[in-house]
């Protein structure tokens, strides 16, 4: 074999792999962004993902693949799961969104019987733009596509709810760029009101520190994540979606506060209306990011006590 041919070939492949970001999302040069053609939304049907064979396959993928991998990379502290004993499914889990770790964190924190009946709303333009990404995210996370820009989808979240599946919805619509919470959209509140299902607020911290936007693997050192499930919220009979949505956001904010301090302190602050703003302080961007890059402290020691080591 001609060694020049092989060497040249390897160099070419390396150059292309680097230039075209194999294994990662392609990027468009900034000055060319305005010329990117509008994406034709290809809708991949996802009903199959909620049928028996897919559920069985997902169980194996999540239990044998995802969970051990997840636990090997990060540590998670889960609180407040007892709320699930007090509600009947389906529910809508509403959480803040800072990282691709959020979805596995929420799913793997849920008790198995809940996890198996929970689907995740995922951006159609991001997770369903190619067949292999669609199949991958469906098998791994039980996602179904929703259109962030408003459009018709193959399966509406309503249908999924009506079939008895709980939903995970990130009302911010996208991952935070600095770890702080963004604006909540109305979708989750609307669905809860429309289908009469309770909303379980979920707050988590540490995922931004462990794997922010732009990173595709958790940082080294098994970062600490914390997740807290709050009391279910039900829209009152006369409560409009516009009134209900802020209530959900406040509940998530209060949970974040509780996670940082204590239940009692957070309760008192919530009562007096002094819950810290979850969108973060209005300071220089670097300070906002800086604060969020710190992983939350765990109550439990991170490893076995040294005294027990030989």
């Amino acid at each position, binding site marked *: 074999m*001609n060694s*020049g*041919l092989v060497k*040249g*070939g390897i160099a*070419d*492949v390396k*150059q*292309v792999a680097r*230039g*075209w970001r194999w294994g990662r999302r*392609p*990027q*468009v*040069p*900034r*000055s*060319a962004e305005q*010329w990117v*053609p509008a994406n034709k939304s290809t809708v991949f049907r996802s009903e199959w993902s909620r049928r028996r064979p897919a559920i069985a396959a997902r169980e194996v993928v999540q239990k044998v693949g995802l969970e051990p991998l997840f636990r090997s990379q990060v540590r998670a502290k889960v609180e407040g799961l007892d709320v699930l004993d007090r509600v009947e499914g389906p529910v809508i889990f509403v959480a803040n969104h800072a990282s691709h770790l959020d979805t596995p964190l929420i799913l793997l924190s849920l008790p198995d019987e809940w996890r198996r009946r929970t689907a995740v709303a995922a951006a159609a333009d991001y997770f369903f733009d190619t067949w292999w990404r669609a199949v991958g995210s469906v098998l791994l996370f039980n996602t179904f596509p929703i259109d962030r820009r408003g459009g018709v989808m193959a399966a509406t979240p309503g249908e999924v709810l009506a079939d008895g599946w709980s939903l995970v919805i990130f009302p911010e619509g996208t991952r935070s760029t600095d770890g702080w919470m963004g604006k909540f959209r109305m979708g989750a509140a609307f669905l809860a009101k429309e289908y009469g299902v309770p909303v379980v607020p979920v707050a988590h911290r540490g995922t931004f520190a462990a794997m922010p936007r732009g990173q595709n693997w958790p940082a080294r050192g098994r970062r600490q994540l914390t997740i807290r499930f709050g009391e279910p919220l039900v829209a009152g009979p006369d409560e409009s979606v516009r009134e209900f949505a802020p209530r959900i956001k406040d509940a998530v904010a209060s949970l974040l506060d509780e996670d940082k301090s204590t239940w009692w302190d957070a309760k008192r602050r919530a009562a007096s209306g002094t819950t810290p703003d979850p969108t973060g302080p209005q300071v220089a961007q670097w300070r906002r990011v800086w604060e969020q890059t710190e992983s939350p402290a765990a109550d439990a020691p991170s490893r076995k006590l040294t005294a027990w080591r030989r």
Partner: protein
Amino acid sequence: MSRPGFVLEVDDRTPPLIVHEGLGFRLESFPLGTRVIYPPESLPAVPDVDQAIRDALLHPQDMDPLPELLFAGMKLTIAFDDISLPLPTMRPPDIRGRIIEHVLTMAAEAGVDDVELIAANALHRRMTAAELKHIVGERVFRSFYPQGKLYNFDAEDRDNLSHLGTTEKGEDIEISKRAAESDLLVYVNVNLVAMDGGHKSVGIGLASYKSLRHHHNAKTMVQSRSFMDHKHSAMHHSAWRIGRVIKDTVKVFQIETTLNNDIFPKPYDFLQKREWEWSLKDQASMLAMRRGLSVAPPKLKHKMFHDLRSVYGLTGVNAGEVEAVHAKTLEKVHEQHLVEVQGQSDVLVMGIPYVGPYNVNSSLNPILATCMGLGYYFNSYLGQPVVRKGGAVILYHPLNEGFNQLHHPSYVDFYEEVLAESTDPAVVGEKYEQQFAEDPWYRHLYRTSHAYHGVHPFYMWYWAAHAMDHVDEVIWVGADRKVAARLGFRAATTLADALEMASGTVGSSPSITYLHNPPHLLAHVK
């Protein structure tokens, strides 16, 4: 909907970009901040070509419909652009053939018997029968070629040239006698780029050396800024003067066509996509092609590229009075090629592809490569050159294709003898042009073989005169050093080396612009 052309600014997200270099291409990572000019995407083609041609012939600009100009007993001559257009060659059927068929159908209906078809090749090489057949189509070829009524123009056939007088500036007008004495001269062109067409078609395509020397010289070319902008091109001004005199003698019915930018057919279509939009398939095609080219012997590489036939779509066809038609044509050409660029830069980078107007089915020798880079590509501007006065030009081409002895015999002597003495277009023109133009052996080869006229290499060198006058440094990346030196330039191995070499002229952090060409573009530099 096709997207307009635009200027990319290379940033950390920009993948390596395609740069053509002869019978191959490379992926180049340009310094951050480099401007890259991308041509507009292909315009949509007209839905019904035959209907468009009929419309143009029946509703011409400032002239009577063609059927009204045809009558029994008349002398009709149809001239057409030669093989130098379009580039690369069009996949059959060639648009010229389709138009000629329509014209001949109308001529047959009008009872015209005396028809001749002349390839307007001026001092270009005679085309072979197969090449003629490709252009006019089998039907026309079979009807006219065996009878000798379809032929290449011979600019050295004294008996068949006609001197129509001189312009107000004393320029001789000597064109094909048959064309000059016809009752109607129909000219069918392919207006691939903005320099083509207009009065250049008849006034240059069917003219002899005596006529051409008035504008094909170093002095005129330096004043043609650029020759892609006929309003600011001394060469075109001269052609226009000549054309207006011809118009007084001969009735010219000009038919001009414009093509879109669909140059590379599958599987080479990745070459005309914007790199960051390459699919995995495009990347794989590119890698496969690169590997194939790296092991292919030169002959096979040549065949791979030169057998490529473009799948152009017709974007417009206009017929009638030359100047009115050309104005319409230019609108379409500009729509397809024009890109607005803000300001000049210190360095202009261009990749020279495998083919130019004068090496179709032949090799791109160093003189033609220079003409492509410093001639055609450098002049692809309106307003002012993309590179500033005193800047540097970096070209990509190996300059290793040698000379085709059949097509370019006088080029060999020009390279070996003339360039060895001087590379200044004005000096070599003054001293040697006449001698090459009148050399009996070159004349013989031009008339009987398939050789470019003896004077043709000089024209190529004049084509580059404006660029040589404008920039201080020309560096060829990946070129044979000896050849580059003979041409009066320098060679570098990589872009980084070339920029290092140019730093003496433009400093160590120059502004750089890369013309992402082909497909064709025309930079409107403000």
